[in-house]
């Protein structure tokens, strides 16, 4: 047995080397898999059901992979299409695929794996006590579930296998675990589950598990009880260190990984250096879960936001920036109450001092005296027009507020016009839960198209 999985890049949309990809194709892979999403860029993408990456760069990178697939006649799989993997972004990705099929004159079969969840179904599962919190999960209620803007379930090997079994040329998956994309075909072909899942985690970010993370493309070659990580780019090696260290990457526990259907344990894994620059891995363990569970991700709207940016270069104000912002806050509070009839609990104004402690806030321990401070003012309220009103009330104070009596008013620097900007809806992640299902496909759907 020898199953080869080609991973062109850690994420579609961040570019990869076409020359290296072509080199990888010469190894005759059995499947090309690429990840398209993550929660790592924040809640707004799932909140809106939109992609983080540009449509044009996504299309151009997908085009190269579609050409590669046509040449080799092997399945091409994308997971978490359109960053958040909602049905809407899967449809967006299908639209791109259709355009390309036309441009490239390809006749293809496409299967979609849809992962968006009905709030009604999830609420029913909640009421029948089939939803369980993960570490540090926020509290949920029926109301909170119904108020989610989007909920997705993370597909695993079982759901992707169903999609591959449709014999489609291209499989566009909604939200899926990174590792499951790589693990699915090998498991279908009889590779040990522990080996396939382990390879899935190691290969999830493409060449991140090699000496040259920028090179993108890797080839994972499977035997029944082991796998080889093989970098494709010239002058790039996989070493036992680079491969095993990827278990640590963006993972809360370096030894175990919870995936749909079970738990991967790599404590006893063995990583062996090979002469050709690859690494051979064996020894992981897979603990099957008798209760099949799916991880859920969800977002809610917590309000609207507008921001303003003002630069303070006058050092007497830089030194007293806290006092200055406190006085402005107090002044606007009164104006807001009188003119907008808004109470303090209905809105929030944050002053973040760029150059002082904007990144770490109250956790910042370094005391520095900068020449200048950028003040980022973040206004959150229940309605967008309230944010804009508050920003406009703030504006003359950010421009001229003086700490001194009997002196000419100071003027501070606005770097942009208009000086304040509408952010729109403010989303937050509100689910970190798993749902127990009878059958892995219970809350997922397949759609088939011939293009």
């Amino acid at each position, binding site marked *: 047995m020898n199953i080869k999985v080609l991973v062109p890049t850690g994420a579609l949309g961040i570019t990869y080397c076409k020359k290296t990809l072509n080199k990888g194709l010469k190894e005759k892979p059995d499947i090309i898999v690429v990840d398209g999403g993550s929660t*790592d860029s924040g809640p707004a993408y799932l909140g809106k059901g939109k992609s983080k990456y540009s449509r044009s760069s996504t299309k151009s990178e997908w085009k190269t992979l579609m050409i590669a697939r046509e040449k080799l006649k092997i399945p091409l799989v994308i997971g978490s299409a359109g960053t958040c993997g909602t049905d809407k972004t899967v449809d967006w990705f299908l639209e791109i695929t259709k355009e390309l099929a036309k441009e490239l004159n390809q006749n293809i079969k496409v299967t979609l794996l849809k992962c968006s969840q009905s709030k009604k179904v999830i609420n029913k599962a909640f009421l029948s006590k089939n939803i369980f919190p993960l570490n540090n999960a926020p509290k949920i209620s029926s109301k909170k579930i119904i108020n989610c803007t989007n909920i997705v379930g993370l597909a695993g090997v079982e759901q992707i296998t169903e999609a591959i079994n449709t014999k489609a040329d291209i499989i566009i998956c909604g939200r899926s675990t990174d590792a499951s994309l790589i693990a699915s075909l090998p498991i279908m072909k009889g590779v040990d589950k522990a080996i396939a899942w382990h390879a899935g985690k190691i290969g999830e970010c493409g060449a991140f598990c090699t000496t040259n993370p920028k090179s993108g493309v890797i080839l994972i070659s499977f035997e029944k009880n082991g796998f080889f990580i093989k970098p494709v780019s010239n002058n790039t090696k996989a070493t036992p260190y680079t491969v095993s260290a990827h278990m640590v*990457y963006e993972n809360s526990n370096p030894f175990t990984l919870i995936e749909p259907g079970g738990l991967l344990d790599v404590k006893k894994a063995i990583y062996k250096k090979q002469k050709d620059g690859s690494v051979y891995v064996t020894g992981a363990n897979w603990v099957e879960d008798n209760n099949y569970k799916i991880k859920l991700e969800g977002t809610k709207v917590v309000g609207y936001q507008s921001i303003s940016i003002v630069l303070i270069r006058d050092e007497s104000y830089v030194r007293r920036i806290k006092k200055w912002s406190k006085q402005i806050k107090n002044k606007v509070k009164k104006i807001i109450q009188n003119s907008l009839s808004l109470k303090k609990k209905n809105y929030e104004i944050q002053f973040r001092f760029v150059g002082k402690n904007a990144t770490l806030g109250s956790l910042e321990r370094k005391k520095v005296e900068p020449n200048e401070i950028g003040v980022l003012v973040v206004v959150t309220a229940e309605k967008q027009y309230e944010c804009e009103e508050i920003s406009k009330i703030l504006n003359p104070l950010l421009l001229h507020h003086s700490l001194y009596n009997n002196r000419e008013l100071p003027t501070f620097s606005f770097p942009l016009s208009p000086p304040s900007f509408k952010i729109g809806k*403010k989303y937050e992640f509100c689910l970190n839960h798993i749902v127990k299902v009878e059958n892995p496909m219970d809350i997922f759907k397949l759609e088939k198209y011939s293009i």
Partner: protein
Amino acid sequence: MKLKELVKKIRSKNAGPFLLTIDIFCSNKKKFQMVVQNVTKIEISTLYKIPKEQINIFPIKNLNIVKITIPRPNIQGSSKDRDLHGASFGIILEELKIK
């Protein structure tokens, strides 16, 4: 000596929207042992203002890496969060005095 002078790299990342994970990379066994001894739940609890019970520290012997996983000080992308990718939380540890 400060921790940043002892180790190769300190990396912080999100481990999902609700957890933060900090990896301390050491160049040899001796330095790794020093990190294990000095970077304790008490130190982390003070620096990150997180209760000790919520902190997990994983010494990974064969890699000379110490991994620390804590709840995110603010949920990723929430109104109070200032660092969407959890990129800069490792810097807080850099100044830690090594005994």
